[in-house]
């Protein structure tokens, strides 16, 4: 709250602090929503530029994080509509770049736990886009179901269904892979 208020009063350091606090979370979320990285970067730049220029019109917000996530999501969706590139083809090309990216992550996965997480990562990446998004918002970004409804513009039941299907699907992929002994025993039990 203090940080937000200092920023609204025109404090550049508070602005930079907000940027530094949330930029990685926002990028991470952006990569999840679309694989067009340029579009994500442009959208975030837009968002922060708009934020500074219109800071006097901003109201006190309960959650800076929620505010930023929602603005970013809306911006990305708007920019996707505007862009001339066919989303499918562009996404395909850029998907590979992202793929390499998580491959690096995987190389670092030496210990058993990190390896498990890396595999879980792969399983998550096989889910539908919206399932991936809902899992990240719920389990990584710690948004409540209510906030997710608002962010994704879905009703309560749809969010629940989406989460339910995502978790079930993850369970199935673990069972089929047959490597994650912990999850197999646990999910079966």
């Amino acid at each position, binding site marked *: 709250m203090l940080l937000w208020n200092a920023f609204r009063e025109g404090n550049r350091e508070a602005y930079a602090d907000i940027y530094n606090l949330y930029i990685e979370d926002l990028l991470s979320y952006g990569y999840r929503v679309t694989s067009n990285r340029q579009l*994500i970067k442009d959208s975030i730049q837009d968002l922060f530029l708009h934020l500074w220029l219109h800071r006097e019109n901003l109201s006190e917000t309960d959650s800076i994080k929620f505010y930023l996530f929602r603005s970013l999501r809306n911006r990305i969706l708007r920019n996707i509509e505007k862009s001339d590139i066919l989303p499918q083809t562009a996404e395909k090309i850029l998907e590979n770049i992202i793929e390499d990216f998580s491959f690096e992550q995987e190389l670092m996965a030496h210990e058993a736990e990190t390896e498990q997480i890396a595999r879980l990562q792969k399983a*998550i990446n096989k889910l539908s886009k919206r399932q991936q998004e809902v899992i990240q918002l719920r389990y990584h970004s710690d948004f409540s179901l209510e906030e997710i409804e608002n962010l994704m513009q879905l009703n309560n039941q749809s969010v629940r269904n989406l*989460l339910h299907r995502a978790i079930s699907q993850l369970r199935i992929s673990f069972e089929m892979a047959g490597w994650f002994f912990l999850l197999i025993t*646990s999910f079966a039990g």
Partner: protein
Amino acid sequence: MFERYAGYSVEDFVKDDNFITWVKFSDSEGNLFWSEFLQNYPHKQETVTQARQIVIHLGEASRMAVDKHDAKEIWSKLEPALAEKSGHSRVVFPLNWNKWVAAASVILILGLIWWNNPLKDNEPKAYTRLIEQAENPLKEVINSSSKAMRITLPDGSVVTLEKASRLSYAREFEGNQREVFLSGAAFFNVTKNPEKPFVVYANELVTKVLGTSFTINAFEENKQVTVAVRTGRVSVFKNKDLTRLGADNKEIILIPNQQVAFTKADAMLVRSLVEKPQVVVSQQELRDLTFTNAPLSDIFEALEKAYGVEIVFDKALLSNCRLTTALGNETLFERLDIICEALEASYKVVDAQIVIDGKKCN
């Protein structure tokens, strides 16, 4: 209370809100609940341990790895863009850079003092005065974390306590009302009990409800105390003297999407609409709100129904106005902006009513 969880599988736990909150924030409330649960159902230990681990793993695995260069790149483009834009607009950076930096650091240092000090040394005065008058011993929850915290009260009501906020309440709600004391901000989802009203004391406002959900914003350093209603009906009283039962003033009744603000300077209660009114009808009903060349009065009526608000306009004057529009994802105020722009009209919010000021259509 525990039976519900007795038959839970790992997967059920992984999806359960209370469970996730406990794993992620290990609040004292959750620790108590889940340790008691395991005492009652010791054979669930393994399931709970596994579900815990999966929730933690899901949190780590669902994060997309971030390229730090992207973060730097955006910032490096942002700075010149800001400088350029600011040069053209009224927003002018202070020329005396040193002075400006000094001012900035004062704000930041104050901020740090606030964050570093344990909240105990910083007892909010109004709040302390109120809880001193409580009859029964109170339980206090202080949220000094950086995230909102969920608290379940003895009657099953759920409070989402924002950071730097605190809440006190009796371990058992005895007597004829359920009383809680708040400093800071919180969202309340109150269980229905018409026999025992739920009463929140927050600085100079007393909020009384039978069963509903609403947000209170009462930080002592702020000039205003606000109560905003999501569902149900809420009565709000002024409590200027910070006495516990001195709520015999005139009450203001709020319905969903309305809020009231108490301004400390003039001790006035002002009713208005919340910043983002929520739709009060079901999504199903909302889907029918598409208009083709419809009279303005129909559109306003639909908006009134959808948001439970009152829109005041000159029916005779605007009787010829027709519009084609569809209710999308816009907020109420965005929607009104669009309509007013099309009609060359304007609107303002007066005492929780939306007043349209427009001219005749041809």
